């Protein structure tokens, strides 16, 4: 009697927790099915079960409404119409089989390489022509009026070394020294 009373009071105490958990578990289970429910991909029995649950559960209904709103928003994407000449263009493509096949594929493959290839080719031509012209121009007999190499005597060489003197020849100091020497040798 006492034990029965205890079980009853225990159930009474934990009832909201137990039922609440069951409710949450069911909601979790239903919410996983909402997408398929929306897409009408559930079996009839499951569909019915979800419909009944949505009538009574505010939180799941809210979730479903959110899904519906997203679905409606997606309808906002604009549609495009094909050109009136779509079929004619297509027929033209079909009747020009030569343009389709291996050649355009190869062409498409090499298209990104076209610019660097042209640049490299022009660079190579520039280098080759530069080298060739350079070789021609440095040849001695190319210029008919080539200046003759000057010849220097030993005397000239000694004279040029005088440039390092304190008073090199041709400078004002040199002239002054010469005048002084002249006056010293022939006094008035």
């Amino acid at each position, binding site marked *: 009697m006492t034990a029965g009373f205890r079980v009853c009071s225990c159930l009474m105490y934990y009832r909201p927790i137990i039922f609440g958990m069951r409710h949450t578990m069911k909601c979790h289970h239903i919410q996983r099915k909402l997408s398929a429910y929306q897409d009408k991909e559930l079996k009839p029995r499951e569909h019915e079960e979800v419909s009944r649950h949505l009538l009574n559960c505010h939180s799941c209904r809210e979730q479903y409404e959110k899904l519906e709103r997203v679905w409606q928003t*997606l309808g906002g994407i604009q*549609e495009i*119409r*094909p050109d009136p000449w779509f079929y004619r263009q*297509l027929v033209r493509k079909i009747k020009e089989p030569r343009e389709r096949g291996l050649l355009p594929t190869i062409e498409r493959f090499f298209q990104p390489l076209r610019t660097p290839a042209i640049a490299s080719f022009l660079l190579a031509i520039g280098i080759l022509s530069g080298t060739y012209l350079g070789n021609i121009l440095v040849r001695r007999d190319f210029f008919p009026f080539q200046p003759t190499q000057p010849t220097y005597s030993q005397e000239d060489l000694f004279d040029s070394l005088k440039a390092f003197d304190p008073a090199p020849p041709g400078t004002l100091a040199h002239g002054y020294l010469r005048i002084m020497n002249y006056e010293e040798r022939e006094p008035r």
Partner: protein
Amino acid sequence: MARIAKGDDEAFEILVNRHQTSVLNLIYRFIGDRTQAKDLAQEVFLRIWQSAKGYEPKAKFTTWIYRIATNLCLNELKSARHRRWVPFQRSDKESENPVEETFSDGSPTAEDLLLARERSRQVSDALKNLPTNQRMALILKRYDDLSYEEIAQILGCSVPAVESLLVRAKRTLQEKLKSFQK
């Protein structure tokens, strides 16, 4: 298809007229570029013409067409990534020419037109950011109303995989398009 296999131009024209809008819009929603979408749509029909002789009706005809279109889109995206392109952008030509765009409410005002364009751009951007398989699954479900089984056949995966792709896509879009839901 049997008539097309025999070289019947008229049958081919009927087929093109019947499916060109859906194929074009499927590609446009996936790629996001009008010019590219038109080129790829022509490529789809060209492949149909070329493979008409070997066609065996294993699944629904639309499923087969969509499969060709999907494969072309995925290949295009791969090669675009290889070329380091950003394909999902509206071209200048596109924004200059709104005449071809259609609206559900018939005759839109200038404000409606701007709002619709802005909404379309935001939705396109949200779609663009989805992973390719999620994006294609969502487009096929939302705009072409295909079943999970048909989508699975087109994408070459299982039905539970399609369900999972759609759940994830919807969850992502719910976050991205929050501003529209108020």
